[in-house]
């Protein structure tokens, strides 16, 4: 899937199987990704597990788990909140039944959005920097903190998936079953949803060409909406290719604007 890290690095990764996004003293988030089409290393998320760790008098440990076609509005123990009935320092809010839930952890100033679009899940998290960085050395595998390992990257090392379009797309018999997006039609389709031609737009094009699944257009659109709702710095909402200083690992050329 496409990953936007805490440092605003944008990557497209394989990361098939279960991977930790966050693993600090307050929160653990793990995702499971599965291949989307035969012949491509592209994967998408079909399971999300979130553990809100016990915190003083504010809440007991609460575990949330969503899988494709089962996006509950409750923790695995059946409750919808943590902490005392009055304070509700941790709450799940269902925005769209079975499609979109929000988790508000007041005691750690953290908000999590989980959505299902098509057959796959999306995730967006806002967390105080002081808490996000509160982890032990042994908890170093966190995709949100360090990004994906280089060996797990699908993009060209610069976050740029468009550059490899046409080179990495699967050429299997399943191609014929797709609606048949060309680069031009995918561009048009994505532009309808996302007028700004930023990295979210390019991800949309990549996903359409990779899978032919129009649901990924909506996923890219809502991912951008989540950024606008949760990212604290408006000037960084959009990420554009160009001469920038925010290239991951000292390489590449993405800039935020």
């Amino acid at each position, binding site marked *: 899937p496409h990953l936007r890290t805490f440092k605003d690095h944008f990557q497209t990764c394989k990361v098939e199987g279960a991977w930790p996004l966050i693993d600090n003293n307050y929160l653990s988030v793990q995702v499971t990704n599965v291949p989307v089409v035969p012949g491509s290393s592209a994967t998408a998320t079909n399971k999300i597990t979130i553990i809100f760790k016990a915190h003083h008098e504010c809440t007991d440990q609460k575990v949330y788990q969503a899988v494709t076609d089962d996006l509950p509005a409750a923790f695995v123990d059946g409750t919808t909140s943590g902490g005392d009935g009055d304070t509700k320092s941790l709450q799940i809010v269902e925005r769209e039944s079975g499609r979109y839930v929000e988790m508000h952890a*007041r005691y750690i100033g953290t908000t999590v959005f989980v959505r299902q679009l098509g057959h796959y899940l999306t995730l967006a998290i806002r967390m105080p920097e002081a808490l996000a960085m509160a982890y032990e050395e042994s908890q170093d595998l966190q995709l949100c903190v360090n990004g994906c390992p280089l060996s797990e990257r699908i993009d060209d090392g610069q976050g740029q998936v468009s550059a490899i379009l046409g080179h990495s797309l699967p050429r299997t018999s399943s191609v014929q079953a797709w609606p048949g997006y060309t680069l031009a039609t995918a561009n048009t389709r994505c532009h309808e949803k996302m007028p700004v031609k930023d990295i979210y737009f390019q991800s949309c094009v990549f996903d359409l060409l990779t*899978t032919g699944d129009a649901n990924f257009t909506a996923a890219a659109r*809502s991912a951008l909406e989540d950024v606008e709702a949760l990212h604290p710095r408006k000037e960084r909402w959009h990420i554009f290719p160009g001469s920038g200083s925010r290239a991951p690992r000292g390489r590449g050329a993405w800039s935020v604007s």
Partner: protein
Amino acid sequence: CRIQKCTTDFVALTSHLNSAIDGFDSEFCKALRAYAGCTQRTSKACRGNLVYHSAVLGISDLMSQRNCSKDGPTSSANPEVTHDPCNYHSHAGAREHRGGEHSPPSYLFCGLFGD
């Protein structure tokens, strides 16, 4: 379970009060109500803690002795007493305030979508 913090804050609020000056009763009751609020917020975590139960009884006795009403203003001189420990924003705000700054805590964003 943080009951000691409640007690420390109460002592800090009342240590400078002088029973000979006007307004002592009012200020003492405010501090007691803040202390009571603080103990209520720790009630779950402290349910098996003898110090906590002693504090709750002590507060009740003192409120009776001083004729303090249960409802009314609470001391706000020390933000630690009045802040909600389960609200990170008030927590972080108090911490920043003590540091002499009013800037909000900085937040980070992470997102995952698509294929």
